[in-house]
Protein backbone atom coordinates (compact mmCIF):
# COMPACT_ATOMS: atom_id res chain seq x y z
CA UNK A 1 0.00 0.00 0.00
CA UNK A 2 1.37 3.45 -0.87
CA UNK A 3 1.69 5.81 2.10
CA UNK A 4 -1.19 8.18 2.83
CA UNK A 5 1.17 11.00 3.71
CA UNK A 6 4.74 11.29 2.59
CA UNK A 7 7.29 13.87 3.68
CA UNK A 8 10.55 13.85 1.74
CA UNK A 9 13.23 16.24 2.93
CA UNK A 10 10.41 18.51 4.03
CA UNK A 11 11.75 21.89 5.12
CA UNK A 12 9.96 25.07 6.11
CA UNK A 13 11.69 28.25 7.19
CA UNK A 14 9.95 31.43 8.32
CA UNK A 15 12.67 33.98 7.70
CA UNK A 16 15.52 32.88 9.92
CA UNK A 17 13.27 30.62 12.03
CA UNK A 18 13.47 26.94 11.19
CA UNK A 19 10.05 25.34 11.68
CA UNK A 20 10.79 22.04 9.95
CA UNK A 21 14.16 20.82 8.68
CA UNK A 22 14.73 17.95 6.26
CA UNK A 23 11.90 15.83 7.70
CA UNK A 24 11.41 12.50 5.96
CA UNK A 25 8.67 10.14 7.08
CA UNK A 26 5.63 8.23 5.81
CA UNK A 27 2.19 7.84 7.36
CA UNK A 28 0.38 4.60 6.56
CA UNK A 29 -3.06 3.26 7.42
CA UNK A 30 -3.99 3.17 11.10
CA UNK A 31 -3.38 5.72 13.81
CA UNK A 32 -0.08 7.57 13.72
CA UNK A 33 1.00 9.88 16.48
CA UNK A 34 2.98 13.03 15.73
CA UNK A 35 4.64 13.71 19.04
CA UNK A 36 6.69 16.66 20.11
CA UNK A 37 6.81 19.60 22.47
CA UNK A 38 5.55 23.05 21.51
CA UNK A 39 7.62 24.46 18.66
CA UNK A 40 8.73 21.03 17.43
CA UNK A 41 7.17 21.61 14.01
CA UNK A 42 3.93 19.62 14.38
CA UNK A 43 1.59 22.44 13.34
CA UNK A 44 3.84 23.39 10.45
CA UNK A 45 3.80 19.77 9.23
CA UNK A 46 -0.03 19.75 9.40
CA UNK A 47 -0.28 23.03 7.49
CA UNK A 48 2.05 21.66 4.81
CA UNK A 49 -0.04 18.49 4.45
CA UNK A 50 -3.22 20.56 4.25
CA UNK A 51 -1.65 22.66 1.49
CA UNK A 52 -2.03 25.89 3.41
CA UNK A 53 1.65 26.77 3.07
CA UNK A 54 4.35 25.76 0.59
CA UNK A 55 7.54 24.07 1.73
CA UNK A 56 10.82 25.94 1.51
CA UNK A 57 12.28 22.74 0.05
CA UNK A 58 11.45 19.07 -0.13
CA UNK A 59 7.94 17.80 -0.71
CA UNK A 60 4.78 16.86 1.15
CA UNK A 61 2.39 14.45 -0.55
CA UNK A 62 -1.13 13.57 0.53
CA UNK A 63 -2.79 10.56 -1.10
CA UNK A 64 -0.32 10.84 -3.97
CA UNK A 65 -0.84 14.56 -4.71
CA UNK A 66 0.95 17.70 -3.62
CA UNK A 67 -1.67 19.55 -1.55
CA UNK A 68 -0.23 23.02 -2.15
CA UNK A 69 -0.61 22.58 -5.91
CA UNK A 70 -4.26 21.49 -6.00
CA UNK A 71 -7.14 21.69 -3.55
CA UNK A 72 -9.04 18.68 -4.92
CA UNK A 73 -7.13 16.21 -2.70
CA UNK A 74 -8.65 17.82 0.39
CA UNK A 75 -11.99 16.18 -0.48
CA UNK A 76 -10.67 12.97 1.14
CA UNK A 77 -8.90 14.68 4.01
CA UNK A 78 -10.32 15.78 7.36
CA UNK A 79 -8.89 18.28 9.82
CA UNK A 80 -9.74 19.00 13.42
CA UNK A 81 -7.98 22.15 14.66
CA UNK A 82 -6.88 22.67 18.23
CA UNK A 83 -8.52 26.07 18.60
CA UNK A 84 -12.20 27.05 18.75
CA UNK A 85 -13.68 27.16 15.26
CA UNK A 86 -17.42 26.60 15.59
CA UNK A 87 -20.28 29.02 14.99
CA UNK A 88 -22.41 29.49 18.08
CA UNK A 89 -25.81 30.29 16.62
CA UNK A 90 -26.41 27.24 14.41
CA UNK A 91 -27.28 23.67 15.41
CA UNK A 92 -24.73 20.86 15.11
CA UNK A 93 -26.92 19.19 12.53
CA UNK A 94 -27.18 22.29 10.34
CA UNK A 95 -23.46 23.01 10.62
CA UNK A 96 -22.34 19.48 9.75
CA UNK A 97 -24.71 19.26 6.82
CA UNK A 98 -23.27 22.48 5.44
CA UNK A 99 -19.68 21.34 5.96
CA UNK A 100 -20.40 18.01 4.23
CA UNK A 101 -21.64 19.95 1.20
CA UNK A 102 -18.59 22.21 1.26
CA UNK A 103 -16.58 18.99 1.05
CA UNK A 104 -18.48 18.12 -2.13
CA UNK A 105 -21.34 15.89 -0.95
CA UNK A 106 -24.79 16.47 -2.52
CA UNK A 107 -27.43 17.77 -0.03
CA UNK A 108 -29.38 14.49 0.37
CA UNK A 109 -26.20 12.50 1.06
CA UNK A 110 -24.92 15.26 3.36
CA UNK A 111 -28.10 14.93 5.45
CA UNK A 112 -27.68 11.14 5.86
CA UNK A 113 -23.98 11.42 6.67
CA UNK A 114 -24.67 14.13 9.25
CA UNK A 115 -27.17 11.92 11.10
CA UNK A 116 -24.74 8.96 11.02
CA UNK A 117 -21.74 10.91 12.26
CA UNK A 118 -23.62 12.66 15.04
CA UNK A 119 -24.72 9.23 16.26
CA UNK A 120 -21.13 7.95 16.17
CA UNK A 121 -19.76 10.86 18.19
CA UNK A 122 -22.62 10.60 20.69
CA UNK A 123 -24.43 13.84 19.87
CA UNK A 124 -27.53 12.27 18.37
CA UNK A 125 -29.83 13.60 21.09
CA UNK A 126 -28.34 17.07 21.07
CA UNK A 127 -28.22 17.66 17.33
CA UNK A 128 -30.93 20.34 17.23
CA UNK A 129 -29.40 22.48 19.97
CA UNK A 130 -27.34 25.56 19.06
CA UNK A 131 -23.60 24.80 19.30
CA UNK A 132 -23.20 27.84 21.57
CA UNK A 133 -25.07 25.93 24.29
CA UNK A 134 -22.69 22.94 24.18
CA UNK A 135 -20.10 22.01 26.82
CA UNK A 136 -16.39 21.96 25.91
CA UNK A 137 -16.47 18.17 25.50
CA UNK A 138 -19.46 18.35 23.19
CA UNK A 139 -17.84 21.08 21.12
CA UNK A 140 -14.72 18.93 20.73
CA UNK A 141 -16.96 16.13 19.45
CA UNK A 142 -18.57 18.50 16.94
CA UNK A 143 -15.07 19.46 15.79
CA UNK A 144 -14.24 15.80 15.29
CA UNK A 145 -17.59 15.18 13.58
CA UNK A 146 -17.03 17.96 11.02
CA UNK A 147 -13.68 16.37 10.18
CA UNK A 148 -15.36 12.99 9.59
CA UNK A 149 -18.67 13.98 8.01
CA UNK A 150 -17.44 13.62 4.41
CA UNK A 151 -15.90 10.19 5.13
CA UNK A 152 -12.24 11.09 4.62
CA UNK A 153 -9.48 8.56 4.05
CA UNK A 154 -7.28 10.35 6.56
CA UNK A 155 -7.97 12.79 9.39
CA UNK A 156 -5.43 15.17 10.90
CA UNK A 157 -6.20 15.86 14.55
CA UNK A 158 -4.41 18.73 16.24
CA UNK A 159 -4.29 18.34 20.06
CA UNK A 160 -7.79 16.79 20.20
CA UNK A 161 -7.85 16.47 24.00
CA UNK A 162 -6.79 20.05 24.72
CA UNK A 163 -8.96 21.68 27.37
CA UNK A 164 -10.88 18.52 28.27
CA UNK A 165 -11.41 17.24 31.81
CA UNK A 166 -10.20 13.67 32.59
CA UNK A 167 -13.61 12.15 31.77
CA UNK A 168 -13.93 14.09 28.52
CA UNK A 169 -10.37 13.16 27.60
CA UNK A 170 -11.06 9.45 28.07
CA UNK A 171 -14.19 9.71 25.90
CA UNK A 172 -12.34 11.58 23.18
CA UNK A 173 -9.47 9.06 23.16
CA UNK A 174 -11.99 6.20 22.93
CA UNK A 175 -13.65 7.93 20.01
CA UNK A 176 -10.33 8.48 18.26
CA UNK A 177 -9.30 4.88 18.79
CA UNK A 178 -12.67 3.65 17.48
CA UNK A 179 -12.44 5.96 14.45
CA UNK A 180 -8.95 4.72 13.62
CA UNK A 181 -9.41 1.04 14.35
CA UNK A 182 -13.13 0.32 13.69
CA UNK A 183 -14.28 2.93 11.17
CA UNK A 184 -11.26 2.37 8.93
CA UNK A 185 -10.39 6.07 8.79
CA UNK A 186 -6.68 6.63 9.23
CA UNK A 187 -5.58 9.25 11.69
CA UNK A 188 -2.56 11.42 12.24
CA UNK A 189 -2.76 12.64 15.79
CA UNK A 190 -0.58 15.61 16.65
CA UNK A 191 -0.03 16.09 20.36
CA UNK A 192 2.49 16.82 23.05
CA UNK A 193 0.74 14.39 25.42
CA UNK A 194 2.46 11.01 25.37
CA UNK A 195 -0.46 9.35 27.11
CA UNK A 196 -2.74 10.22 24.19
CA UNK A 197 -0.37 8.49 21.77
CA UNK A 198 0.09 5.43 24.00
CA UNK A 199 -3.69 5.08 24.28
CA UNK A 200 -4.55 5.41 20.60
CA UNK A 201 -1.65 5.21 18.16
CA UNK A 202 -0.05 2.27 16.34
CA UNK A 203 3.00 4.22 15.23
CA UNK A 204 4.71 7.34 16.45
CA UNK A 205 6.83 9.99 14.77
CA UNK A 206 8.75 12.13 17.23
CA UNK A 207 9.60 15.66 16.14
CA UNK A 208 12.20 17.63 17.98
CA UNK A 209 13.40 21.08 16.97
CA UNK A 210 11.85 20.66 13.51
CA UNK A 211 13.60 17.34 12.84
CA UNK A 212 12.40 13.75 13.05
CA UNK A 213 14.05 12.43 16.23
CA UNK A 214 12.62 8.91 16.21
CA UNK A 215 9.84 6.92 14.59
CA UNK A 216 8.43 3.44 14.74
CA UNK A 217 5.63 1.30 16.19
CA UNK A 218 4.46 2.49 19.61
CA UNK A 219 4.92 -1.08 20.89
CA UNK A 220 8.67 -0.79 20.21
CA UNK A 221 8.86 2.10 22.64
CA UNK A 222 6.69 0.54 25.33
CA UNK A 223 7.97 -3.07 25.50
CA UNK A 224 9.93 -4.57 28.40
CA UNK A 225 13.53 -3.45 28.63
CA UNK A 226 16.61 -5.05 30.20
CA UNK A 227 16.58 -2.34 32.85
CA UNK A 228 15.69 -3.68 36.28
CA UNK A 229 13.69 -1.62 38.79
CA UNK A 230 14.09 -2.55 42.44
CA UNK A 231 11.76 -0.75 44.83
CA UNK A 232 12.71 -0.95 48.50
CA UNK A 233 11.50 0.89 51.60
CA UNK A 234 14.93 1.59 53.12
CA UNK A 235 18.67 0.77 53.11
CA UNK A 236 19.15 2.18 49.60
CA UNK A 237 22.74 3.20 50.22
CA UNK A 238 23.75 -0.18 51.68
CA UNK A 239 22.31 -1.97 48.64
CA UNK A 240 24.11 0.36 46.23
CA UNK A 241 27.40 -0.21 48.08
CA UNK A 242 26.90 -3.99 48.15
CA UNK A 243 26.10 -4.07 44.45
CA UNK A 244 29.02 -1.85 43.65
CA UNK A 245 31.33 -4.26 45.50
CA UNK A 246 30.05 -7.01 43.23
CA UNK A 247 30.70 -4.89 40.13
CA UNK A 248 27.04 -3.92 39.51
CA UNK A 249 26.11 -0.26 39.10
CA UNK A 250 22.79 0.85 40.54
CA UNK A 251 21.33 4.36 40.39
CA UNK A 252 18.79 5.62 42.87
CA UNK A 253 15.65 7.15 41.40
CA UNK A 254 13.19 8.05 44.14
CA UNK A 255 12.41 4.92 46.16
CA UNK A 256 13.70 2.72 43.34
CA UNK A 257 17.09 1.49 42.28
CA UNK A 258 17.72 1.24 38.57
CA UNK A 259 20.12 -1.35 37.18
CA UNK A 260 20.85 -1.25 33.45
CA UNK A 261 21.42 -4.42 31.35
CA UNK A 262 20.38 -6.72 34.16
CA UNK A 263 21.22 -10.37 33.35
CA UNK A 264 21.29 -13.46 35.59
CA UNK A 265 24.51 -12.39 37.36
CA UNK A 266 23.07 -8.98 38.18
CA UNK A 267 19.87 -10.58 39.49
CA UNK A 268 21.95 -12.83 41.79
CA UNK A 269 23.87 -9.80 43.01
CA UNK A 270 20.64 -7.92 43.76
CA UNK A 271 19.30 -10.94 45.69
CA UNK A 272 22.49 -11.08 47.78
CA UNK A 273 22.57 -7.34 48.39
CA UNK A 274 18.94 -7.32 49.54
CA UNK A 275 19.59 -10.25 51.88
CA UNK A 276 22.71 -8.76 53.41
CA UNK A 277 21.21 -5.27 53.87
CA UNK A 278 17.98 -6.53 55.42
CA UNK A 279 15.98 -4.10 53.24
CA UNK A 280 12.27 -4.65 52.77
CA UNK A 281 11.58 -5.33 49.09
CA UNK A 282 8.41 -3.79 47.67
CA UNK A 283 8.70 -4.62 44.01
CA UNK A 284 11.25 -5.91 41.52
CA UNK A 285 10.42 -5.90 37.80
CA UNK A 286 11.91 -5.16 34.41
CA UNK A 287 11.27 -1.55 33.39
CA UNK A 288 8.57 -1.21 30.72
CA UNK A 289 9.43 1.57 28.30
CA UNK A 290 7.15 4.60 27.93
CA UNK A 291 7.13 7.38 25.38
CA UNK A 292 8.43 9.64 28.13
CA UNK A 293 11.74 7.77 27.79
CA UNK A 294 12.07 9.03 24.22
CA UNK A 295 12.42 12.54 25.53
CA UNK A 296 14.58 11.52 28.50
CA UNK A 297 16.96 9.66 26.22
CA UNK A 298 16.89 12.13 23.33
CA UNK A 299 20.46 13.10 22.41
CA UNK A 300 19.63 16.82 22.03
CA UNK A 301 17.29 17.02 24.99
CA UNK A 302 13.81 18.39 24.64
Amino acid sequence: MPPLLQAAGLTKHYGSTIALEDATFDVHEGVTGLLGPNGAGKSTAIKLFLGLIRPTSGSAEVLGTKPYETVEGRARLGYMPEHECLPSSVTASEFLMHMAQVSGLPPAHARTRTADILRHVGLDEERYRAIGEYSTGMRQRVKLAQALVHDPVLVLLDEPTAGLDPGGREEMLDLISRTGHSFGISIMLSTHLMGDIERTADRVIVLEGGRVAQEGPVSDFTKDTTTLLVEVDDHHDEIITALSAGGVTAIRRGQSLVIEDAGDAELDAVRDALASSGARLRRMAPHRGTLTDIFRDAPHGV
Partner: protein
Amino acid sequence: MASEPPVTTGPQGEVFDLGYQRYDGPREGRSRARKAIYWDGVKLILGIGRGPKSKILPLLLFIGAMFPALVFVIILSVAGDVAGFLFDGPAGYNGMISTLLIMFGAIMAPELFTPDRKDRVLDLYLVRPITSTDYAMARVAAFMSIVLALVYSGQIVLQLGLILTATEPWGYIKDNWQDIPRFIGAGFLVALFITAIPMAVATFTNRRAYASVFVIGLFMVTAVTVEILTQVESCPGHARSMNGEIILDELECEPLTGDAAKYIELLNFGAAPLFMNDLVFDIESRSELHDAIPIGAYGVYTVIPLALIWWQYRRTRI
Protein backbone atom coordinates in the same frame (compact mmCIF):
# COMPACT_ATOMS: atom_id res chain seq x y z
CA MET B 1 -63.95 -24.28 17.06
CA ALA B 2 -61.64 -21.48 16.03
CA SER B 3 -58.03 -22.32 16.42
CA GLU B 4 -56.01 -20.39 19.03
CA PRO B 5 -53.52 -17.87 17.63
CA PRO B 6 -50.05 -19.36 17.74
CA VAL B 7 -48.18 -18.45 20.86
CA THR B 8 -44.87 -16.89 20.02
CA THR B 9 -41.95 -17.09 22.30
CA GLY B 10 -38.54 -15.49 22.22
CA PRO B 11 -37.52 -12.22 20.63
CA GLN B 12 -39.95 -10.59 18.18
CA GLY B 13 -37.45 -8.18 16.70
CA GLU B 14 -33.85 -7.23 16.92
CA VAL B 15 -32.02 -3.94 16.66
CA PHE B 16 -28.82 -4.20 14.69
CA ASP B 17 -26.04 -1.69 15.04
CA LEU B 18 -24.74 -1.44 11.52
CA GLY B 19 -21.67 0.34 12.80
CA TYR B 20 -19.86 2.88 10.71
CA GLN B 21 -20.86 2.92 7.05
CA ARG B 22 -18.34 4.16 4.49
CA TYR B 23 -19.60 6.71 1.97
CA ASP B 24 -19.40 5.66 -1.65
CA GLY B 25 -21.85 8.18 -3.12
CA PRO B 26 -21.03 11.06 -5.47
CA ARG B 27 -18.49 13.73 -4.64
CA GLU B 28 -19.13 16.91 -6.59
CA GLY B 29 -15.99 18.82 -5.63
CA ARG B 30 -15.54 22.57 -5.87
CA SER B 31 -18.76 23.33 -7.73
CA ARG B 32 -20.84 21.79 -4.90
CA ALA B 33 -18.73 23.62 -2.33
CA ARG B 34 -19.28 26.98 -4.06
CA LYS B 35 -23.03 26.33 -4.29
CA ALA B 36 -23.17 25.38 -0.61
CA ILE B 37 -21.38 28.58 0.47
CA TYR B 38 -23.57 30.66 -1.87
CA TRP B 39 -26.86 29.25 -0.55
CA ASP B 40 -25.63 29.46 3.03
CA GLY B 41 -24.96 33.17 2.42
CA VAL B 42 -28.43 33.72 0.94
CA LYS B 43 -30.06 31.96 3.92
CA LEU B 44 -27.92 33.95 6.33
CA ILE B 45 -29.06 37.29 4.87
CA LEU B 46 -32.72 36.34 4.70
CA GLY B 47 -32.69 34.74 8.16
CA ILE B 48 -33.88 31.38 6.78
CA GLY B 49 -33.47 28.58 9.32
CA ARG B 50 -33.04 31.12 12.11
CA GLY B 51 -35.37 32.73 14.64
CA PRO B 52 -38.13 35.23 13.74
CA LYS B 53 -35.94 38.18 14.78
CA SER B 54 -33.46 37.42 11.99
CA LYS B 55 -36.23 37.67 9.41
CA ILE B 56 -37.61 41.06 10.46
CA LEU B 57 -34.89 43.29 8.95
CA PRO B 58 -34.77 41.64 5.50
CA LEU B 59 -38.57 41.63 5.38
CA LEU B 60 -38.74 45.34 6.23
CA LEU B 61 -36.11 46.11 3.60
CA PHE B 62 -38.02 44.24 0.91
CA ILE B 63 -41.22 46.05 1.88
CA GLY B 64 -39.28 49.32 1.85
CA ALA B 65 -37.89 48.62 -1.63
CA MET B 66 -41.33 47.90 -3.04
CA PHE B 67 -43.25 50.54 -1.14
CA PRO B 68 -42.67 53.50 -3.52
CA ALA B 69 -43.67 51.31 -6.46
CA LEU B 70 -46.87 50.20 -4.71
CA VAL B 71 -47.75 53.82 -3.85
CA PHE B 72 -47.08 54.85 -7.45
CA VAL B 73 -49.29 52.07 -8.82
CA ILE B 74 -52.13 52.92 -6.41
CA ILE B 75 -52.00 56.62 -7.32
CA LEU B 76 -51.79 55.68 -10.99
CA SER B 77 -54.86 53.49 -10.77
CA VAL B 78 -56.86 56.10 -8.84
CA ALA B 79 -55.69 59.40 -10.27
CA GLY B 80 -54.27 58.39 -13.64
CA ASP B 81 -51.57 60.63 -15.10
CA VAL B 82 -51.23 62.70 -11.92
CA ALA B 83 -48.85 59.98 -10.73
CA GLY B 84 -46.45 60.98 -13.47
CA PHE B 85 -45.92 64.36 -11.75
CA LEU B 86 -44.99 62.66 -8.51
CA PHE B 87 -42.66 59.93 -9.78
CA ASP B 88 -40.05 59.70 -12.49
CA GLY B 89 -41.05 56.14 -13.37
CA PRO B 90 -38.51 53.32 -13.90
CA ALA B 91 -35.61 55.70 -14.60
CA GLY B 92 -35.94 57.43 -11.26
CA TYR B 93 -36.75 54.40 -9.16
CA ASN B 94 -33.18 53.37 -8.30
CA GLY B 95 -32.47 56.92 -7.08
CA MET B 96 -35.57 56.76 -4.91
CA ILE B 97 -34.46 53.60 -3.08
CA SER B 98 -30.70 54.27 -3.13
CA THR B 99 -30.51 55.33 0.54
CA LEU B 100 -32.36 52.19 1.55
CA LEU B 101 -29.95 50.08 -0.52
CA ILE B 102 -26.91 51.71 1.07
CA MET B 103 -28.34 51.04 4.55
CA PHE B 104 -29.01 47.45 3.56
CA GLY B 105 -25.42 47.02 2.30
CA ALA B 106 -23.94 48.61 5.42
CA ILE B 107 -25.98 46.49 7.84
CA MET B 108 -26.14 43.12 6.09
CA ALA B 109 -22.86 42.76 4.14
CA PRO B 110 -20.69 42.28 7.27
CA GLU B 111 -23.00 39.39 8.26
CA LEU B 112 -21.47 37.28 5.50
CA PHE B 113 -17.80 37.76 6.33
CA THR B 114 -17.21 38.83 9.92
CA PRO B 115 -18.78 35.93 11.92
CA ASP B 116 -16.79 33.32 9.97
CA ARG B 117 -13.56 35.16 10.72
CA LYS B 118 -14.43 36.03 14.32
CA ASP B 119 -15.46 32.46 15.21
CA ARG B 120 -12.60 31.09 13.05
CA VAL B 121 -15.02 28.95 11.05
CA LEU B 122 -13.08 30.24 8.06
CA ASP B 123 -10.26 27.86 9.05
CA LEU B 124 -12.60 24.94 8.40
CA TYR B 125 -13.52 26.28 4.96
CA LEU B 126 -9.88 26.76 3.96
CA VAL B 127 -9.00 23.09 4.59
CA ARG B 128 -11.78 21.86 2.30
CA PRO B 129 -11.56 21.42 -1.47
CA ILE B 130 -12.02 25.12 -2.26
CA THR B 131 -9.72 28.11 -2.57
CA SER B 132 -10.12 31.21 -0.45
CA THR B 133 -11.18 33.03 -3.64
CA ASP B 134 -14.00 30.47 -4.15
CA TYR B 135 -15.22 31.21 -0.64
CA ALA B 136 -15.07 34.99 -0.97
CA MET B 137 -16.67 35.10 -4.41
CA ALA B 138 -19.50 32.73 -3.39
CA ARG B 139 -20.27 35.06 -0.47
CA VAL B 140 -20.12 38.14 -2.74
CA ALA B 141 -22.44 36.43 -5.25
CA ALA B 142 -24.89 35.54 -2.45
CA PHE B 143 -25.04 39.12 -1.25
CA MET B 144 -25.36 40.56 -4.73
CA SER B 145 -28.23 38.18 -5.51
CA ILE B 146 -30.20 39.56 -2.58
CA VAL B 147 -29.43 43.16 -3.56
CA LEU B 148 -30.53 42.37 -7.12
CA ALA B 149 -33.77 40.90 -5.78
CA LEU B 150 -34.30 44.09 -3.75
CA VAL B 151 -33.60 46.36 -6.73
CA TYR B 152 -35.70 44.34 -9.17
CA SER B 153 -38.67 43.69 -6.88
CA GLY B 154 -39.74 47.35 -6.87
CA GLN B 155 -39.10 47.74 -10.58
CA ILE B 156 -41.17 44.63 -11.36
CA VAL B 157 -44.09 45.95 -9.30
CA LEU B 158 -43.72 49.28 -11.10
CA GLN B 159 -43.64 47.72 -14.57
CA LEU B 160 -46.62 45.50 -13.85
CA GLY B 161 -48.55 48.50 -12.50
CA LEU B 162 -47.72 50.60 -15.57
CA ILE B 163 -48.77 47.81 -17.93
CA LEU B 164 -51.97 46.85 -16.14
CA THR B 165 -53.19 50.43 -15.63
CA ALA B 166 -52.48 51.43 -19.25
CA THR B 167 -55.52 51.92 -21.49
CA GLU B 168 -53.95 49.52 -23.94
CA PRO B 169 -51.51 47.25 -22.06
CA TRP B 170 -50.11 45.63 -25.20
CA GLY B 171 -49.61 49.05 -26.81
CA TYR B 172 -47.80 50.22 -23.66
CA ILE B 173 -45.44 47.23 -23.83
CA LYS B 174 -44.73 47.87 -27.51
CA ASP B 175 -43.96 51.54 -26.86
CA ASN B 176 -41.92 51.04 -23.68
CA TRP B 177 -40.30 47.60 -24.02
CA GLN B 178 -36.86 49.16 -23.76
CA ASP B 179 -37.54 49.95 -20.10
CA ILE B 180 -37.21 46.24 -19.30
CA PRO B 181 -33.58 45.67 -20.44
CA ARG B 182 -32.77 49.13 -19.05
CA PHE B 183 -34.03 48.42 -15.56
CA ILE B 184 -32.29 45.04 -15.64
CA GLY B 185 -28.98 46.60 -16.72
CA ALA B 186 -29.19 49.62 -14.41
CA GLY B 187 -30.29 47.41 -11.51
CA PHE B 188 -27.29 45.15 -12.06
CA LEU B 189 -24.86 48.09 -11.98
CA VAL B 190 -26.49 49.54 -8.84
CA ALA B 191 -26.45 46.13 -7.12
CA LEU B 192 -22.78 45.54 -8.00
CA PHE B 193 -21.86 48.88 -6.46
CA ILE B 194 -23.94 48.31 -3.31
CA THR B 195 -22.26 44.90 -2.94
CA ALA B 196 -18.64 45.86 -3.59
CA ILE B 197 -17.91 48.63 -1.07
CA PRO B 198 -19.68 47.25 2.05
CA MET B 199 -18.30 43.76 1.48
CA ALA B 200 -14.77 45.06 1.01
CA VAL B 201 -15.04 47.05 4.24
CA ALA B 202 -16.30 43.91 6.03
CA THR B 203 -13.08 42.05 5.17
CA PHE B 204 -11.03 44.47 7.28
CA THR B 205 -12.71 44.00 10.65
CA ASN B 206 -14.08 41.21 12.79
CA ARG B 207 -16.71 43.52 14.30
CA ARG B 208 -19.95 43.85 12.36
CA ALA B 209 -20.84 47.17 13.99
CA TYR B 210 -17.53 48.78 12.99
CA ALA B 211 -18.03 47.78 9.35
CA SER B 212 -21.62 49.09 9.30
CA VAL B 213 -20.72 52.41 10.90
CA PHE B 214 -17.75 52.86 8.58
CA VAL B 215 -19.84 52.26 5.43
CA ILE B 216 -22.65 54.60 6.53
CA GLY B 217 -20.04 57.18 7.51
CA LEU B 218 -18.26 56.84 4.18
CA PHE B 219 -21.40 57.55 2.18
CA MET B 220 -22.53 60.37 4.48
CA VAL B 221 -19.15 62.09 4.67
CA THR B 222 -18.61 62.02 0.90
CA ALA B 223 -22.16 63.29 0.24
CA VAL B 224 -21.91 66.11 2.79
CA THR B 225 -18.40 67.10 1.70
CA VAL B 226 -19.43 67.35 -1.94
CA GLU B 227 -22.55 69.32 -0.95
CA ILE B 228 -20.49 71.80 1.08
CA LEU B 229 -17.88 72.26 -1.61
CA THR B 230 -20.29 72.71 -4.50
CA GLN B 231 -23.51 74.19 -3.05
CA VAL B 232 -23.00 76.09 0.18
CA GLU B 233 -22.84 79.86 -0.30
CA SER B 234 -22.49 80.94 3.30
CA CYS B 235 -20.75 79.44 6.25
CA PRO B 236 -20.28 80.30 9.93
CA GLY B 237 -17.45 82.71 10.61
CA HIS B 238 -15.99 84.19 13.79
CA ALA B 239 -17.92 83.98 17.02
CA ARG B 240 -18.46 87.22 18.90
CA SER B 241 -20.31 88.20 22.01
CA MET B 242 -23.11 90.76 21.96
CA ASN B 243 -25.15 91.59 25.07
CA GLY B 244 -24.00 88.34 26.63
CA GLU B 245 -25.01 86.20 23.65
CA ILE B 246 -22.64 84.38 21.35
CA ILE B 247 -23.25 85.28 17.75
CA LEU B 248 -21.67 83.65 14.75
CA ASP B 249 -20.86 85.85 11.80
CA GLU B 250 -22.15 84.63 8.49
CA LEU B 251 -19.38 84.51 5.93
CA GLU B 252 -19.93 84.40 2.25
CA CYS B 253 -18.44 81.29 0.71
CA GLU B 254 -17.76 80.73 -2.86
CA PRO B 255 -18.85 77.25 -3.89
CA LEU B 256 -16.79 75.44 -6.44
CA THR B 257 -18.11 75.85 -9.93
CA GLY B 258 -17.17 74.78 -13.42
CA ASP B 259 -15.17 71.64 -14.13
CA ALA B 260 -13.81 71.48 -10.58
CA ALA B 261 -17.35 71.14 -9.19
CA LYS B 262 -18.22 68.51 -11.79
CA TYR B 263 -15.20 66.41 -10.85
CA ILE B 264 -15.76 66.91 -7.13
CA GLU B 265 -19.30 65.54 -7.56
CA LEU B 266 -17.77 62.23 -8.59
CA LEU B 267 -16.41 61.89 -5.04
CA ASN B 268 -19.96 61.46 -3.75
CA PHE B 269 -19.96 57.66 -3.47
CA GLY B 270 -23.73 57.44 -3.25
CA ALA B 271 -24.18 59.25 -6.58
CA ALA B 272 -21.78 57.02 -8.56
CA PRO B 273 -24.29 54.24 -9.37
CA LEU B 274 -26.95 56.83 -10.20
CA PHE B 275 -24.71 58.33 -12.89
CA MET B 276 -24.70 54.84 -14.44
CA ASN B 277 -28.47 54.59 -14.01
CA ASP B 278 -28.93 57.82 -15.98
CA LEU B 279 -26.67 56.55 -18.75
CA VAL B 280 -28.47 53.21 -19.04
CA PHE B 281 -31.92 54.84 -19.09
CA ASP B 282 -30.60 57.43 -21.55
CA ILE B 283 -31.94 60.37 -19.52
CA GLU B 284 -30.24 63.67 -18.76
CA SER B 285 -27.19 62.75 -16.73
CA ARG B 286 -26.60 64.11 -13.24
CA SER B 287 -22.99 64.48 -14.28
CA GLU B 288 -22.17 67.15 -16.81
CA LEU B 289 -18.86 65.52 -17.64
CA HIS B 290 -18.15 63.34 -20.63
CA ASP B 291 -19.81 59.92 -20.14
CA ALA B 292 -16.46 58.15 -19.95
CA ILE B 293 -15.52 59.95 -16.72
CA PRO B 294 -18.46 58.86 -14.50
CA ILE B 295 -18.14 55.40 -16.05
CA GLY B 296 -14.46 55.39 -15.02
CA ALA B 297 -15.33 56.58 -11.50
CA TYR B 298 -17.93 53.82 -11.19
CA GLY B 299 -15.34 51.31 -12.41
CA VAL B 300 -12.85 52.45 -9.79
CA TYR B 301 -15.48 52.32 -7.01
CA THR B 302 -16.42 48.73 -7.85
CA VAL B 303 -13.24 47.12 -9.18
CA ILE B 304 -10.98 48.31 -6.33
CA PRO B 305 -13.27 46.98 -3.55
CA LEU B 306 -13.67 43.64 -5.35
CA ALA B 307 -9.90 43.42 -5.81
CA LEU B 308 -9.46 44.21 -2.10
CA ILE B 309 -11.79 41.35 -1.16
CA TRP B 310 -9.80 38.97 -3.37
CA TRP B 311 -6.49 40.21 -1.96
CA GLN B 312 -7.63 40.01 1.68
CA TYR B 313 -8.76 36.39 1.32
CA ARG B 314 -5.80 35.35 -0.80
CA ARG B 315 -3.44 36.33 2.01
CA THR B 316 -5.59 34.76 4.74
CA ARG B 317 -3.76 32.05 6.66
CA ILE B 318 -4.99 29.79 9.44
